[in-house]
């Protein structure tokens, strides 16, 4: 089975199954699919940095959480009629929240990237982790927005013309954003920028020696990657109607990384396969034993040891073409 064919099947399942669940009146499965779409989106973001650019960011929870908190803060101000800054009351409109969440994440990513991209390997992993943990502890100790208890969003934010409280409609929003992002990243992958980025992952010295400045390319990729993950964080906040410091914790960074690796590092649809498998494991095995993560660990071990191409590589039996 070719990778292309496999990707189409995954899209068909992702779009089709929730509608089936909707008609069978099983909203739980619709929200499960929404979770998959959102977490896959977060993974698509990380995959751009990690899979294409070889930047092992262990701090993407920072951007996921920023997306979530920007959403929560804007909504809570709007719902409580308290201005954030004089004249700006916050908003409950997704179309305003998303760009703001992405913009703020981009600014933070620019700062984190500028400092951490001067290192590589283990140091890069530790610095990105350290930044994310700094934000995590800050969110715990900042009482204004709930501190350790988190911040509830009493009503899901709105989207013009849609009733976002209806699970299938909110699912379609998330799914559409995921598909648009996948399309955008596939274009980016084959562009001049993607060409340079993937070459940098393999041989930075060589790419530098032909006149491409590695920092510029990597920093740009890191920032784009962060904005995608922040968008996912914003949707995640709306899905749960709640944000908490957990979104910033290193567990979250680890989980996003697991989606990417399970699905297949650098494969466009890898995060979708990985997030799908992860969430299904959690839902199915989790109902059977509370130690389901033990089996997830075995699975991850199997992928890392025997199937470097991840789930997609295993199923498509296709070498990744650069």
């Amino acid at each position: 089975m070719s990778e292309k064919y496999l990707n189409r099947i995954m899209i068909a399942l992702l779009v089709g199954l929730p509608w089936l669940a909707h008609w069978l009146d099983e909203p739980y499965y619709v929200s499960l699919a929404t979770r998959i779409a959102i977490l896959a989106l977060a993974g698509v973001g990380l995959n751009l940095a990690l899979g294409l650019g070889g930047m092992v960011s262990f701090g993407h929870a920072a951007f996921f959480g920023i997306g979530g908190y920007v959403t929560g803060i804007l909504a809570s101000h709007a719902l409580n009629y308290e201005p954030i800054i004089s004249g700006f009351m916050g908003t409950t409109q997704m179309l305003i929240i998303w760009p703001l969440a992405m913009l703020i994440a981009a600014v933070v990513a620019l700062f984190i990237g500028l400092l951490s991209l001067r290192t590589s390997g283990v140091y890069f992993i530790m610095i990105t982790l350290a930044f994310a943990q700094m934000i995590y502890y800050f969110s715990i100790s900042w009482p204004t927005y709930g501190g350790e208890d988190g911040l509830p969003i009493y009503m899901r934010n709105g989207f013009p013309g849609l009733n976002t409280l209806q699970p299938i409609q909110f699912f379609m929003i998330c799914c559409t954003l995921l598909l648009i992002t996948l399309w955008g990243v596939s274009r980016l992958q084959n562009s001049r920028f993607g060409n340079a980025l993937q070459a940098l992952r393999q041989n930075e010295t060589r790419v530098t020696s032909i006149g491409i400045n590695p920092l510029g390319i990597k920093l740009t990729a890191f920032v784009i990657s962060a904005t995608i993950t922040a968008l996912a964080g914003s949707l995640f906040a709306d899905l749960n109607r709640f944000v908490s410091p957990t979104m910033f914790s290193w567990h979250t960074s680890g989980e996003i990384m697991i989606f990417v690796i399970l699905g297949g590092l650098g494969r466009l649809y890898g995060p979708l396969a990985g997030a799908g498998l992860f969430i299904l494991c959690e839902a199915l095995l989790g109902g059977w034993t509370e130690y389901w993560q033990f089996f997830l660990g075995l699975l991850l071990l199997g992928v890392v040891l025997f199937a470097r191409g991840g789930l997609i590589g295993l199923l498509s039996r296709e070498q990744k073409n650069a």
Partner: protein
Amino acid sequence: MPNPVIEITNLSKSFGAIQATQDLSITLNFGEIHALIGPNGAGKSTLIKQITGYIQPDQGQIRFLGQTINQLSPASRAKLGLAQTFQVSSLIMEYSCVDNLLLVVQARSGSSFSFFAAVRDDQKLLAQARSYLDQVGLSERHHLPASALSHGERRQLEIAMALALEPKAFLLDEPMAGMDPAGVKNLIERLKEMRLQAPILLIEHDMAAVFALADRITVLDYGRIIATGSVDSIRNNEHVQTAYLGVAP
């Protein structure tokens, strides 16, 4: 074209107690092959790295095309027209031969900050990449990933990448290393052609190749120049014979 193309004056670099480069001055003139020889650890590669910008000198000045480039990043120096090949082949291993060259042509012909249009749809760029592959005789292997090439072919691809940069100077670090005699012979002919395009600073241990190619030879030992001059003057220089060519005094 300013002459000399590369002009290095009073360059010094030490790593702790080791003087890798000691008050070294050297030039590369237009149209010449200037060979740099010396025993292992003489500081040849360190010198190249200072020219390309991967190592910062402690003292001294490096001028390229009349401009001081000490403060420039390695990428900017390459962009100005400094092409290098590495002692150990350095390629984008998962990329095919033609994609390796496509990347060079892309880097030379404008920005890498284009996010949308597919680079492999650019026929002009592809045609250029293929033409450099033709020049080194690798066209039949164009679709193979660099990792699937033999050692000799990898060296060829490196040369093609240096050519594709359309540089103003070549810095070649042991291009003959590990090649079979037929390959060496081929490469000698190729370097003779390349010199017409841009001068070559050549580090090489294969003395037959050096004597066949070089217009000037500079001999380094312990980071210092112990002799410099024409092929004949070096061949007959006593210092060089004891330090490097292995002739008993």
